[in-house]
Structure formats: C-alpha cells, structure tokens
C-alpha cells in the first residue's frame, strides 16, 4: 500500500483498521540466492539495493533480535560527508546524496533534515586541519566551506564563540549535512525489501556457516538450516563472532560509545554542531530534545553501558560551548557497541571464504553511511568483487599498511 496523506484520511474514516503490515511475517525458505545476516540499517540497505540495482530478489535478511535494534536505533543520527580521505568522502557523500531522496525512494518519511553540520575549530591545529579538509572536499565534489566565527554565531546563536578557554576560531560547514529519524531508516528499508518479495526473518540467530571446499553453502540458524549461493555478514558489533564461524579473524575491537538526550525544549538550535577539541557534539531533535554524543570507552565491552566519566567530560565541555544547557536536565543516557578497526575506517570486503562478504567496522560513523554502504556492499555481493566505492575498504589494507585514517585532519570523531 502506498503511503500518503490521502491514504491516512481514507484509513482514518475506517478507524485505522485497514493498515497492512509494513513488512510480512516471513518464514525461511530452504534456499536463497543471497542471505544477508543482520537486519540493521546496513544489512537492510544491502538487501534493498541487491534487489533494486542488481535484480537479486530471492533474498533473506536474518536478524537474531528485532530489526533495527542495534546501533541503527542507538545513535545521534548525524549525516555528513565532509571527510578528508578520498575513499571516505566518496562513500559518505554517496550516502548523503541517497539520503536526500530516500523518503521518496522508499515512500516512507525518514525525515532527512539537511539543516547543516558544523565542526568547530577551537585550536590553530584544528583550523589547519579543517582548511585542509575544505580543500580536499572541493576536489571530491563535496560541498563544504570554512566559515568565520561571526558566521558560526549567526548560524547557531546559542554558541559561546568567545569562550575563555577554546574560543571558536572558525568552523568547517556542510550546509547539506543534517539528521534523519534513525528507526525510520531501518523500517523504510525493511518495508522496501518486503515489497520486493524478500524475507525479513527476525528472532533468527545464525549459529554456524556451512561451506564445501572453501565455498559457502549456507547457514545454520535457530530456525534451522538455510542454503544460499552468497552470504553477506553485516552485523556490526557481532562481526567477530560471525567471522569466527567463517574461519577468519578481524582487526576489530568492540567498545561502548555513549550518548544522551535532554528533556525536550522549544526549538533553539537549528544546526548540528561538533566540537572535537572537547569531544562533544549536539543537535536538537524534532521532539525538542538536545541530542548529545561523546567519546568511546577505551576497553572492550559488550554491555551497552559505558563509563560515566565520558558523559561528564562531554557535558562539561558542551556547557562551556553552550552555556544555556546548564539548567537543562539529562533525560536518558545509553551506550551502543561500536566496532573499531585498526585505522577507525570501515571494512567492505571479500573474505577468505568464497562468496562470503563482510561489511563492518563502521566505528562511530555507521548511521550516516547506511545507504552508501548498502549500495556498495550490494554491488560487491552481486558482482563478486568490490566496485569503486568499496575498493579501498578491503581487509588486505591492514597487511599492506594502506590505511584510511580520518583522525589525521583534526582528530575528527564521527
């Protein structure tokens, strides 16, 4: 059923009894052309573009919990592509441009709001770093500019630009960056996959990967064995466990990354602000909550709880930058598990097992990458080899020392 205002009126007159399920209740078939493990944003997007771009529609997406239940639903929803290194800029910009039209593409309002993202430069070192990024972006077809403190104040009046400790010396500004409704992205893709006849199977945990002479045959799950020609592992924090099943290891450590929201207040901040010198970033949701993200823990952790001192560090830094938040109250804090690679950049790669592909290691930058990541991974799965977008993100780079290091600009967090 197509969603529209007209449809809502029609259904309203029937007491909303006529709405169909957004995605079907699927039971696994014995065999699929391709299986995607993980019904988070990246997994669902991978499946969606497999069908949309490559006509591969006999696909199952297996999810051990409920779809969109991982980091897709636990992040600060920032979307930007002002990265320094070419491979990052390429895939994040592809992603951002897909976000622009995703609501129309999926006929599901994911509320992409290109309200603009600014990264504050608060030391000379950051100024140099962001000027460099601005130059790189210009050559990468990514529209950014380095703006003055006056412009910063104009775009975000609640910022204290003349702070005693870290005055704002300028900012890297991406006007077409912004935010989106995180859950809606997963739900919209799931609905899109279902409409193409794909099976989204929740509460179905993969317990083994079956292969014959180095080639994948299928998976064993809590709901029985399922065969497949191709297998994509897109499970973020659980990648290590799945890789183990396929007999290889990853350059990954799983850490807790924390975020928090304040109680809702009337609109006072129309842009996304990232302040990396002081490790904090903030935006205001449509509900009015100030959404705040901070740094990741330094130790391995699967508890989805982080250490409070990071929250403390982030909040005090943001009060220094936004004095008005001091009397707001933190409503809720939570942790997400992020998988960090050796160079903090993602992995989109073939694996030692034939026809098994992996997409992981998005660290703190996963949400903004969902459409582009799905697009690139689908291409790799369909063609059996990575295309231009994914080419540089292979596992082999760690052996060769060919890193994609974004921290070099100015220690930019995602």
């Amino acid at each position, binding site marked *: 059923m197509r969603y529209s205002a007209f449809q*809502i009126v029609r259904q309203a007159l029937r*007491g*909303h009894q006529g*709405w*169909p399920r*957004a995605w079907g209740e699927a039971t696994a078939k014995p065999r699929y052309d391709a299986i995607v493990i993980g019904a988070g944003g990246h997994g669902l997007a991978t499946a969606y573009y497999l069908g949309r771009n490559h006509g591969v529609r006999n696909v199952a997406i297996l999810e051990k*919990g*409920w779809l969109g239940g991982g980091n897709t*639903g636990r992040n600060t929803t920032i979307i930007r592509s002002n990265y320094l290194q*070419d491979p990052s800029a*390429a895939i994040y910009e592809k992603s951002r441009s897909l976000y*622009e039209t995703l*609501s129309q593409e999926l006929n599901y*309002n*994911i*509320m992409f709001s*290109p309200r603009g993202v600014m990264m504050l430069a608060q*030391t*000379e*070192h950051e100024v*140099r770093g962001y*000027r460099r990024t*601005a130059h*790189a972006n*210009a*050559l*990468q077809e990514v529209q950014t*500019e380095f703006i003055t403190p006056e412009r910063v104040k104009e775009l975000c009046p609640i910022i204290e630009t003349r702070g005693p*400790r870290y005055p704002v010396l300028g900012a890297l500004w991406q006007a077409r960056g912004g935010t989106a409704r995180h859950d*809606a992205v997963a739900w919209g893709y799931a609905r899109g996959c279902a409409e193409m006849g794909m099976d989204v199977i929740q509460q179905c945990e993969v317990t083994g990967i079956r292969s014959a002479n180095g080639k994948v045959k299928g998976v064993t799950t809590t709901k029985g064995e399922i065969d497949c020609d191709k297998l994509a592992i897109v499970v973020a924090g659980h990648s290590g466990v799945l890789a183990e099943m396929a007999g290889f290891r990853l350059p990954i450590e799983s850490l807790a990354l924390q975020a928090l929201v*304040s109680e809702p*207040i009337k609109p006072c901040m129309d842009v996304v602000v990232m302040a990396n010198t002081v490790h904090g970033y903030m935006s*205001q949701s*449509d*509900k*009015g909550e100030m959404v705040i993200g901070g740094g990741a823990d330094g130790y391995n952790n699967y*508890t989805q*709880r982080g250490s*409070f001192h990071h929250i*403390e560090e982030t909040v005090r830094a943001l009060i*220094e930058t936004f*004095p*008005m938040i*001091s*009397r*707001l*109250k*933190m*409503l*809720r*804090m939570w942790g997400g598990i992020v998988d960090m690679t050796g160079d903090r950049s993602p992995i989109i790669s073939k694996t030692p097992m034939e026809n098994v592909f992996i997409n992981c290691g998005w660290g703190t930058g996963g949400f903004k990458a969902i459409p582009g990541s799905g697009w690139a991974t689908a291409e790799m799965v369909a063609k059996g080899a990575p295309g*231009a*977008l994914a080419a540089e993100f292979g596992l082999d*780079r760690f052996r*060769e*020392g*060919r890193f994609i*290091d974004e*921290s*070099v600009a100015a220690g930019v967090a995602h």
Partner: protein
Amino acid sequence: MSARRIDGGRLIDRTKPLRFTFNGRKMEGFQGDTLASALLANGQMLVGRSFKYHRPRGIVTAGPEEPNALVNLGKDKRFEPNARATTTELFDGLEARSQNHWPSLERDIGVLNDRFARFLPAGFYYKTFIHPRPFWKHVFEPFIRQSAGLGQAPRHRDGDTYEHVNVTVDVLVSGGGISGLAAALAAGKAGARVLLVEQSAHWGGRLDDAPDIDGQPAETWVAETVAALTNLENVTVKLRTTHSGVYDHGYCLAVERLTDHDPLGPGPRQRLWKVRAGRIVAATGAIERPLSFAGNDLPGVMLAAAVRDYLTGYGVAPGRRTVVVTNNDDGYRTAFALKDQGLEVPLILDARSDPGPVAEAARELGLKVAPGKGLAGVSGKGRVEKAAVAAIDGSGAVLDELACDCIAMAGGWSPAVHLWSHAGGKLHWDETDAMFVPDPDKPPLGADGKAMVRCVGAAAGELGAAEALETGWAAGLWAATETGHKPKRGAGPKAEPDEETPIAPVWVMPRGADPEKRAKMWLDYQNDVKVSDVELAQREGYESVEHTKRYTTLGMATDQGKLSNINGLAVLADARGEPIPAVGTTTFRPPYTPLTMGAIAGEARGDLFQPIRRTPMHEHHERMGAHWEPVGHWRRPYAFPRSGESVEEAVNREIVNTRQNVGLLDASTLGKILVKGPDAARFLDMLYTGMMSSLKPGRCRYGLMCSENGFLIDDGVVARIDEDTFLCHTTTGGADRIHAHMEEWLQTEWWDWQVHTLNITEAWAQIGVVGPKARDLLEALGGMDLSEEALPFMSWADGEIGGFKARIYRISFSGELSYEIAVDAGHGAALWEACLDAGESLGVMPYGTEALHVMRAEKGFIMIGDETDGTVIPQDLGLSWAISKKKDDYLGKRAQDRLFMTDPNRWKLVGLETLDGSVLPEGAYAVDDSKNANGQRETQGRVTSTYYSPSLKRGIAMGLVRHGPDRMGEVLTFPGVDGTETKARIVEPVFLKEAGA
C-alpha cells in the same frame, strides 16, 4: 484562602504561609507544600498541555513520575524548564508558568491538532509529508518542531554553582521509607559504612498507610529510627537526594538538591554524589498504575494514592465529589481517607466481582461499592464532570451516570525496579500480583561477580508494611555480611501483616471496549499515546516492544514510561495474543529522574573548566601582553604584540629581530625525560630510528621516534649525560605521551632490561637564546665559557651563568646561533628577566611559537603535527639520515617494510615556492588532470606548512609531493576553495641558505 484546603496535612506548616505566582496569578501556599499541592489548594487543576494534541492536562500524581505538571520555573539566570510541580518544594516568591501552549493555557491554538486527532494516529508522520521533497525541511518540520518541545529554552548563563563529592561506602540504601530505614538500621548496627538517601524532603514514605511498628505508631518508629541512624558514626543520611543510577562495579550517582527549595540560600545549588558502594539496597517503592478507560486523560482524573497523599500530606482535597475506581484493595484506602475528611465518595467501582473483606469495611462506613463494575468513560469540559458506569467485562453499555469532579483510579502497582535494571538485573512477571519484580536469579553483578543490588519492600513487590520491614532488615544484614561485617543477632522491626484480596488486572476498561472507545484511552498522557495506537503499531508489524515504543513514542516522555510502560506492554501482549512476559520490557536507562546538566559538570566551569598549564615565566609573558596559543593544556605565547601592532606584524618583527639581533624563547614546555641504566643506550636504540648508543657523553643528537605501526610520533634532541644516562627532549605535546610509551615498552616487553625513566619536564625552566648576538648576550650575563671551542654545536655543558646554576645546550631549531639554558624552574622567571636586561643593548626581544614555526620552516626543519599527521614515515620526509642502517631493529622498522610503505609513489617532502611570491593557501592540494573512479579529482601532493617569510619577503611552503625530490623545478597547480588557482615550483626545502648555527 482556598476552597480546597481542608484540615490535616502532615507535611505542611500552616503557621508559615508562602506567596507564589502561576502564569502571573498570585497564589498562596504553606511551608512544606509542593508546587502541585499548592496549585491544587488554589483550585488550579489545569496545569499544562499535552505534547501532540495539546489536550488540557491536570495533575495526576504526587511524585517524580508526574507526566503532566511540568512548568517553566523561575526566570533569567535561575530559569528552569520542565520542572516537576509534584517534586518542586514551594518557596516564597516562586514563579511558575505552564508550558506548550499559545497564546494561553486556557486558549491554545495547538489544540487544533486535537480536532484532527483521528487523522494523526501513531506514526502518521512516517506516512506523509513525503512530497514535495523540500517541504519537509522548510514547511512540515518547522511546524512539528514548533508544536513539540514543552518548556522554553533558557536564555541566560546559569547563575548557580554545583559540586561533586566522591565517597566509598559498604552499603548504599536508596529510599527512606520504612523498608529502607530498616535496611539502613540493620547494616548500620552491624558496623557497615552506610549511606541512606531519600529523594523527598521527609522520611517514612507513604506513612499514613503504615500500621503500628513494634507496637508504636509508624510515625514514632520512623522518627526514632532516623534519630538512631543519625547517632551512628558509620551512617550518613541524606534527604532531598535522588539515587539517579547504578553503574558497573557499584558506582552510583545520587544528586542532592541543596538550594532548589531555597534559591537564595548559600553554597552550590546541587551536589552530585559519586558513590562507590559494596552493596546497594533499593528501597525505592512502587508506582501506581492508571486505568485505561475512555477520557482517562481529563484533568481531575488522578492516581488514587496521589489523591490520598494530597489529603493526608498537604490537607488538600483535589475533588469534592470523588469516584474511586479500582481493581485492588488499595483504592479503598483513598475512599476511606476521603470519607474520613468528610468528602463525598458517591461510588467505589471495583473490577473484582468479589472484593472480599475490604468492601465489607467500606459498606460499614456507609460507602457504596459496585463489584464487577468499571468506568465506561468520563466526560467534562476541561475537567471531569461526569462518570459513566459499565460492567467490567462488557463492551461499555452505560448502566449509570454520576456527577463528580474527581476520579481516583487504582490500577495496581509497579515496583520501581530501575536501580536493579540499570546495571543489568533481569525481571520476571508475577502473575498473582500482576507486576514485574526483580528476578533474584538474574541480579546485576558487581566486580566480584556476585549480586550487588537487592530490592526490598514495594520495590521487590512486597506491598505490605510487615514484608517491607522484613525484607528491608534482611537486606541490611545481607549487605553488611557481604561487605565483611558480622551482624549481631537480634530481631528486626515488626508489623502486623494485613490480608488483602488479590488484584484483578484490567488493562482496558471495560474489557470489551470497542475501537472507538480505545481511541479515547490514554496510556502516555504527555506524548498522547492511546490504547488504539499500540494496537495499530502491532497490526502494522511494529510488534517488538522496542518497535512499538519507538513507533508510538510510548514511554519516551519525560517520565520515561513510569506510568505508561506496563499498561502499554499489557495492551501489546493482548494484541499479540501472548502472555506479558513473552513480550518483555524495554530497557531501563539512567537517570531515574532527569539530572541537571550543571550538576554533571560540577566544579568544571569557567576557570576550573580545564587545567591551564603555566610555565615559570607565565606571569611575565602575561605582563608583556602575550597572545596565547593553547598547546594541549599548556598555554604558550603565540607572539608578543606591542601596542598598536597586529599579531601578524608582531610575528614578523620577532623573526627579523631574532635573525638580526637576538631573541628569547620560553622553551620550558618541551618534554624532558631522563633515561638511565646499563641498558639505557640499547633501549634508546630501539626507541629512536637513529643510533643513540654511539653518542658521546657531552654531545647531543637529533632523534626520531616511530610507532610500532611505522609512523612518526615525535622528535627531539637527545643529550648523553654520562655512560648510562641520557636526557631525551620531546615535543611540547609529547612529554607525557612519550614517557608513557617508554614505560610501556620497558614494563611490558623488555622488563629484564636495566633501565629507569623519569619525566622531569617540570623541574626545569628552559630558555632559548637565539640569534647572531646570542653569545654576546650570554657573555654579558657572565659565567661559563661558551666559545665555539668550549661548547661546539650539538653539545651541552653544566655550569654557572649570570649566577644561575644552569645546563646549557648548543642546539638550533632556527638555523641561527642558539643556546638553550635550563635552570631549576624556581629560577626561571629570574633568569628570563636577567636575559632581557643583559640583552637590552643588543636589542633582545622575546618571540613566540609562530616566529619559531616560521624560522624552522625557513630552514626546512619539519614540525611534528604539520609535516606529520599520523600517516607519514621518516622516509617520506627525507630524514633517512636520521635512520640508522646499522641497526637490525627499532620500533617501526618492520612496519616500514610493508608494501604500501615502500611504494615508490609515496608523497615525499619538498619545498614549494609560489611563482608570484604569494603565500600558498593552508592545506591546499596539488592536482592532476584526471579524475578517479569515484569522480574525484586526482591529487599528487599537498601543502604541509605555509608561511610568509619576512626574511625572504615572500611566501614559503613545505609539502609532500609524489616523486617530489626527483622533480625539482617542476610547477604544480594548487586550486583554492574559491575557484582560484595558485602555481608553485618544487624546490629544495631549505629556503634560508646561510648558516648561523
């Protein structure tokens, strides 16, 4: 003063009237009132508007679970949005305004949403506002944002201060009701270090319900117990302190409100307690559940226990004629309390067909009870006026209608298990009492792998006073024993158990209500989530509890679902045709109640936001009007502008003067690490790319350090003091990092090597005396022989100069004749002054970090952080001379052999000269003509540092360029961000040839 203030009121002091205003209207209350009780006393039932439909909202509860009564409190520097009226203690002069309406609380335009409510079901916004595309950002979203958001955004800097305090205790008891008091007493008597916190301003909790304890009135027992606890050395008790969260390893946060009830009082506003607790006893009570009947969100519909609290605690009657609707015995307590105050209770509706003894008791008091009945709905304009009675199991056919101005609803209790769940405790569903209770087999684990939290009393589902005392006492003993104490024998406090008839869960009232009615039953009052919304979510496949919550926003309001979660869960379970436990619960996250940001920051604001590291000469620089640059936590002078001089002009003046006469640099921030031992030389050979073991005592050598991953991490001059002692200089930012790096390798890899290291950075003040007249200045100071013979380039010597015991290094970072003089930090300022005096006739001037950077660039010296960015190896920088070929290993060597590191196409360091003499833009890239497969312009190099050289009167730059060193003379194109282009020629990276050093 008010029609609704009646007799009684345990918590108020009628001799102390207080004045306050609500929406500008003058009102009066008493000491001990909450804002909510005072508003009710003044007949103010309507206090706000809901989030989505802007429906009128009244006070529902008497505690922190309140979803409706949120106000804008105070003004200017003391303005707070979303303050809970039910937990805000009244004070004289309090100013409150209601939220989320325009133009006024009574006439709100946003209520239009309500007219169209049927067109705005759960998740409607996912299904519309899709076309045309730009409309979301520019039309739809602004409207949605404007109508959402509750309280006003503060406009001023916070006028209050906050503080933190860290304490370690054996036992933290949360909750000062009878159960918590019993726990604290048991643990305290056993000798454990106990901290007892109570969120409200008084002890004993819902005292009026409690029977006699140990043969005396509960109130007396509480007073005596609190006194006993206060007298115990090892026990601390705190009122107005909310236990916000439980984290790993017994780490807890509790916030103490010091002056919120007395804004003019001295000291901090709030104090954040960071508690390390061995064991935690959660005596946090339970929260009453609303009942879901049509119109249950009308002002005047309140929780039964809250109605009781206002009566007995504050002497306020929310209604004159109150209908009680219940599914358990507790509702009757409210009826009795009302009756006791001579207030009308036309009818008690009990969902249970056979209420048992309690109903008999009611009838004996002359109250009318209707078993097996419930509400078909309530109605009224802006507040409750009429209640319609129906059979509980029917579809809602109205049997009778009653006029009333208040509904007291008793839907059963939900234990406040938040503290149990924060750090991973699991719950199970108790069928008979219809509630989630802590599952003792799945507790949150402490560092020792054992249970660290125990819930007691109502928080454990034990609603009776007898059980509350029993479980509390037992938990106190448990916690004390677990933390190594030996409780003496002795019975705990006792009360008579009271028999109650079990609850009859009613999730939808009446049970057979049709969709029309279900669309009028509110689950989440603040976010406007109704029974029909949850059912719709389930129909559409959002059937996981997390999906439902996120799709409908159920439980995401500021009360975080304290009232709505369980009711919503039950409705979802029913819709899915599954038992409640199969549906599970959403995750409980800290904080228990919203926590002020300022309290989280504590003292770290303004001057104390972060440490500023000062060198011994800091004040002197300050007096000279230094323009500061933060380098890590250090502050270094960037330049010393004189009056009427721009920073830029100052930098150029400092450079010219240093090159022509002599300049002074405060080099104290450079790291200094002492490395000593028989294996020191061998150790440094592993740490640096170059050979340090061959360095002669008395000499200095420049060294590079790489990470094990091959990349350059630091550089500096190493001085060999004697056979087994070295002094390693690091960059300003590097001192602590590099010292940690050294210790890491010594302790975790080469622990059998005999080496000690010590970071002595701060013991010394170091001054660079730089320029052609440097030696003249030092000779003017007088002292040790500094002639070329006595102290050749790259050597050091101890001695005395100008009366200062000093160590002098003959090293240069500018190409000029240069000495670095190190003295005890305590003499730094004096030496700095002495140098200025001695050099006055020579034209000495201090210079800052920017002059330093330009001068090193003029000589083609690299700067860590400019030429390096974590992806650069020494080989890229033409520093092969600093990499020993003789050594078979050093940190980073293996990494530098990897495929990509030995790629001939790596970008290498060169100098860059613009054709027009201009300064190359910072961070610019040199382009190729082609584009890559992703449509990005190919690049072949980039600028790493670029300056105006006052010595050469032109722009100079260094950069990394593909095959650069082999392409001398070639011209590269650097596009700017503004479409312009700069052309620059590849040259040797040494711009200033003549040597001074």
